[in-house]
């Protein structure tokens, strides 16, 4: 266990040394959030009754999404892993007494956390002092806040478990290009990253809420403001845990079978 924690620590240190990237990211996320809220406000003002969430819940959704972008974003891969699959650097990974799954999982987790740690606080602080319609509201209740934190952690674990499946598929097909083109658009949309799931047409919304991707960010972001509450919230949390276990299982199987048929490219 200690060695996986060491990977985590090293990757964390690596992420923290890129200060300029963090500042640039921060500025982007702040303006992006501002712009999104502006756009949704225009929709809201033209017809508030057609708006599927309260405006306040929408604002919280966007600010939390921007602040924790590095935690939630589905298409943020560890490029090192793809490189080592393509050029054969994977040799070194396999020549050491480490479990490939554990090591890659720890690396991805650390990469996301290091990026998030540098970015979330300034975005949240700014969002809390903005003038009224743009301001980040308080959580619906202490219980909602606690569940928001919990589901955000599970969402992160779920997202990384999903990435592990992508890495496993890339290892099997010896090239990441296919899987990288195929998955991101669907997953990004279904996780509620582009528009929140309540804005989906009724039938699509029902399907999306059952799929694993909703648990990646739709669930925590809506629990905070109380937009997701009561029985639907409990169902969503149970589903999130269920999918986490399923993804962990699939990824683990995929990687160990890919390991057995490993192909080292490039001599």
């Amino acid at each position, binding site marked *: 266990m200690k060695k996986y924690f060491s990977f985590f620590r*090293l990757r964390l240190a*690596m992420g923290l040394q890129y200060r300029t990237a963090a500042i640039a990211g921060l500025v982007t996320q702040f303006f992006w959030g501002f712009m999104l809220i502006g756009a949704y406000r225009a929709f809201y003002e033209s017809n508030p009754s057609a708006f599927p969430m309260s405006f306040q819940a929408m604002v919280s959704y966007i600010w939390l999404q921007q602040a924790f972008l590095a935690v939630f974003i589905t298409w943020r891969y560890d490029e090192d892993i793809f490189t080592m699959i393509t*050029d054969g650097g994977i*040799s070194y990974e396999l020549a*050491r*007494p480490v479990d490939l799954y554990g090591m890659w999982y720890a690396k991805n987790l650390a990469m996301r956390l290091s990026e998030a740690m540098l970015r979330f606080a300034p975005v949240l602080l700014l969002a809390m002092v903005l003038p009224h319609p743009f301001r980040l509201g308080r959580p619906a209740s202490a219980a909602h806040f606690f569940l928001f934190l919990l589901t955000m952690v599970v969402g992160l674990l779920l997202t990384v478990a999903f990435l592990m499946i992508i890495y496993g598929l890339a290892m099997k097909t010896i090239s990441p290009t296919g899987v990288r083109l195929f998955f991101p658009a669907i997953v990004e949309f279904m996780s509620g990253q582009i528009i929140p799931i309540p804005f989906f047409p009724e039938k699509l919304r029902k399907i999306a809420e059952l799929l694993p991707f909703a648990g990646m960010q739709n669930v925590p972001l809506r629990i905070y403001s109380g937009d997701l509450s009561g029985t639907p919230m409990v169902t969503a949390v149970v589903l999130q845990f269920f999918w986490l276990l399923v993804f962990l299982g699939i990824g683990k199987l995929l990687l160990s079978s890919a390991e*057995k048929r490993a192909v*080292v490219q490039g001599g």
Partner: protein
Amino acid sequence: MIHLENVVKTYKVARRGTGTRETLRAFFRRDYTEIRALDGLSFDIPDGEIVGLLGPNGAGKSTAIKILSGILYPDSGTVECNGFVPYKDRMRYTREIGVVFGQRTQLFWDVPVGDSYALLKDIYDIPDDVFNENLEEMTALLRLEKLLTTPARQLSLGQRMRCELAASLLHSPKILFLDEPTIGLDAASKLAVRKFVRDVNERRQTTVILTTHDMQDVEALSERVMMIGKGKLLLNGTLSDIRREGESLDESLVEFYRQIELDNREEEEDLS
């Protein structure tokens, strides 16, 4: 003790001709050819030896090293190293081996070399005293003092190779695999690497298995030479079996390849 018997490893290669028509055809129908990288390879290596694996490009040397170090599964045959089946007992076996692939790096690109070493300490569960002792020894032998605080990406190739060698020995492995450790190095660095490998072998009785195209590496290091060609063991002997009077080692080697029909012209015919 390393024991290899009748090891076979094949790769599938999708082949197609060049040009638009061929490319389009290959889109619908692929022709696969099997390449036998290892075709019944057998040999034994006793503990504490330095063995040079020789052979032209594509002979199967690297494949052999990757099977011996637990990275690749063979299709068939028996492999046993120090009582382990490398690819099956990968997690336990890899504690006992060190590897250096000359064309790749095991150091973390963005952090100082010392950080990579600290990580290796945890990966191999190296006790503090062993780690410190080894690191001290490596630092002295390979002159690493200044390099330990330098990020890996800013090392020259020669410096990096010194750091790679140290990295592969921190956990006191019993077997060391070196796949082209002197590739691209200048004369001084080559000499340093050779001296170091000899020192380690003498001091710790580490078995060293080395692949290289540099005949001077072999001359300086290996008592024993194994020639691999077309996936088979062709010679198990010493350099004197290859050396010819009045010729350089490289010339002798080419002549040797020619005699056993391993020269490049032959290989090109194969590809056509």
